[in-house]
């Protein structure tokens, strides 16, 4: 550690990038305390008006929508992702394993636009689901998925699933199989082995996957924008609307800032809860 021949050279580019990140964060904080001057991109003087504006119902509704979307998406993604990750890790045949791996991970490398557009074709009023159900005579009028929370949640679950599967599969693959074998040899049935060995040991993975699912859903923009169509406003769609419809950068900045503080608070509470849970698990 005494010789440091490359310290300065190697950290220089990343220090510059860190400055850019810090500067843009400071710009957001600064703009959120400045007045909006209609028709100008330059902000006015110091004000707290942006934050009092956020108490209006539109913004409260957007916060509520975002939280609900995060919650429902996390629940359904975990319920669907866990069996998928389990099957991927425990599949006996190499071919089946590769197939599950490729099918569930390919969407991770397709952008939000392709995936959201595909869901519009599936869920639209003349889309695949409604056309099929109507031809089979199950329904007379199309079910509204577009512009509803249900539609946005379906697409968001599909959007979040691959990353959750990756994290759950990583956790499941690091569980010592000998523990399960020992339980089986002592006469435990498969359900009992899963409930008392596999599931508890994968809790750290579930926790990590849940917080990632939350961050992804919170950050999602194209899905609520295109499927919500302005009827399901979230923080991200509102920031874009405020920023680009009226070029009210100060209000967009304060909305982003509050959203960011909210994310950090949720993740911090979540992590503390998990650490408590782990400590509790370690003691018992």
């Amino acid at each position, binding site marked *: *550690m005494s*010789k*440091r*021949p490359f*310290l300065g*050279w*190697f*950290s*220089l*580019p*990343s220090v510059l*990038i*860190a400055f*850019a*990140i810090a*500067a*843009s964060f400071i*710009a*957001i904080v600064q*703009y959120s305390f400045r007045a909006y001057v209609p028709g100008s991109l*330059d902000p006015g003087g110091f004000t707290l008006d942006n934050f009092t504006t956020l108490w209006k119902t539109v913004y409260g509704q957007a916060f509520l929508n975002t939280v609900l979307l995060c919650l429902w998406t996390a629940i359904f993604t975990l319920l669907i992702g866990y*069996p*998928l990750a389990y*099957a991927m*890790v425990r599949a006996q045949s190499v071919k089946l394993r590769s197939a*599950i*791996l*490729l099918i569930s*991970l*390919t969407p991770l*490398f397709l*952008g939000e*636009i*392709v995936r959201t*557009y*595909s*869901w519009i*074709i*599936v869920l639209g009023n*003349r*889309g*695949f689901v409604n*056309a099929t159900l109507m031809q089979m005579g199950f329904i007379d009028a199309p079910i509204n998925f577009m512009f509803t929370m249900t539609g946005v949640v379906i697409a968001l679950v*599909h959007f979040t699933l691959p990353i959750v599967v*990756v994290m759950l*599969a*990583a956790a499941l*693959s690091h569980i010592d199989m000998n523990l399960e074998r020992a339980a089986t040899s002592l006469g435990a049935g*498969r359900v009992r082995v899963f409930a008392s060995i596999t599931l508890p040991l994968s809790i750290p993975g579930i926790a990590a996957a849940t917080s990632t699912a939350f*961050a992804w859903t919170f*950050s999602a*923009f*194209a899905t609520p924008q*295109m499927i919500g169509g302005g009827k399901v406003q979230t923080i*991200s769609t509102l*920031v*874009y609307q405020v920023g680009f419809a009226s070029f009210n950068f100060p209000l967009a*900045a304060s909305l*982003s800032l509050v959203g*960011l503080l909210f994310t950090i608070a949720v993740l911090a509470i979540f992590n503390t809860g998990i650490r408590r849970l782990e400590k509790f698990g370690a003691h018992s």
Partner: protein
Amino acid sequence: MKKSLFDHLLDWSGRVLLTMILGFVLLPFLVVFIASFNDSAILSFPPKNWSLRWYSNAIEYRDFGKGLINSLKVSAIAATFAMIAGSGFAYVLNRYDFSLKSLLNSILMSPLIIPNFTIGLGLLILSTAASLPRTIWLVVAVHVIIVLPFVIRSVYVSLQNFERRYEQAAESLGAAPLRVLLTITLPLLVPGLISGALFAAILSFNEFTASLFVVNQGTQTFPVAMYNYVREYADPTLAAVSVIYVIAVAALLLVVHKFFRLEKVLNVE
């Protein structure tokens, strides 16, 4: 071991569940595949007439071509920058202790938590306040910030699994630090660097939200061009684009899987 009736039931319900979940993952891609060959501009299932006109429309639409070139440029430059900055920082993080190290680390890692729309808005405000023109370099800067944490992580993991004895052997034989770095450390890190840069390039190519805030008509990336198309036209041209996109990505992943095995790359073995 003889399986009981209950075990068989469990096996079968597991298979049914797995098929349903895989069906849910594949459904939108199958549907978009069918829709892309629909002759009519209005969606209908099943399509009454088939045609390839949306494919030729997609290839001829000029914004897609320009967007594709912009995206290839941006992702290549951003991945290169991120690899240089990220591997340098990962090395420093792994080998040295210095003041402000943890602060620097948390700033560089913060884009994992900060939503992309906030990063885009921040850079937009910053460039407006500094009256910088909205060139392609602004898009590159946003992408470098977003993909950098992934590169740092991937190189840092390779450095942690690194066999230090090779370096020590070279040092004890009298090699200067620069020579050790260039002839021992760097060559051994190449696989980690390549997979990190590849991952960064794919992430950058797909990035949409933050880009939307900082692009203009001339610098719009491929995902932004696709988004703008959906807002203006209702025809299935984008279905054709999506099919090409999905096939290209799946083919790329198959190749990666053949050579590297995805289980290993994603650490799910």
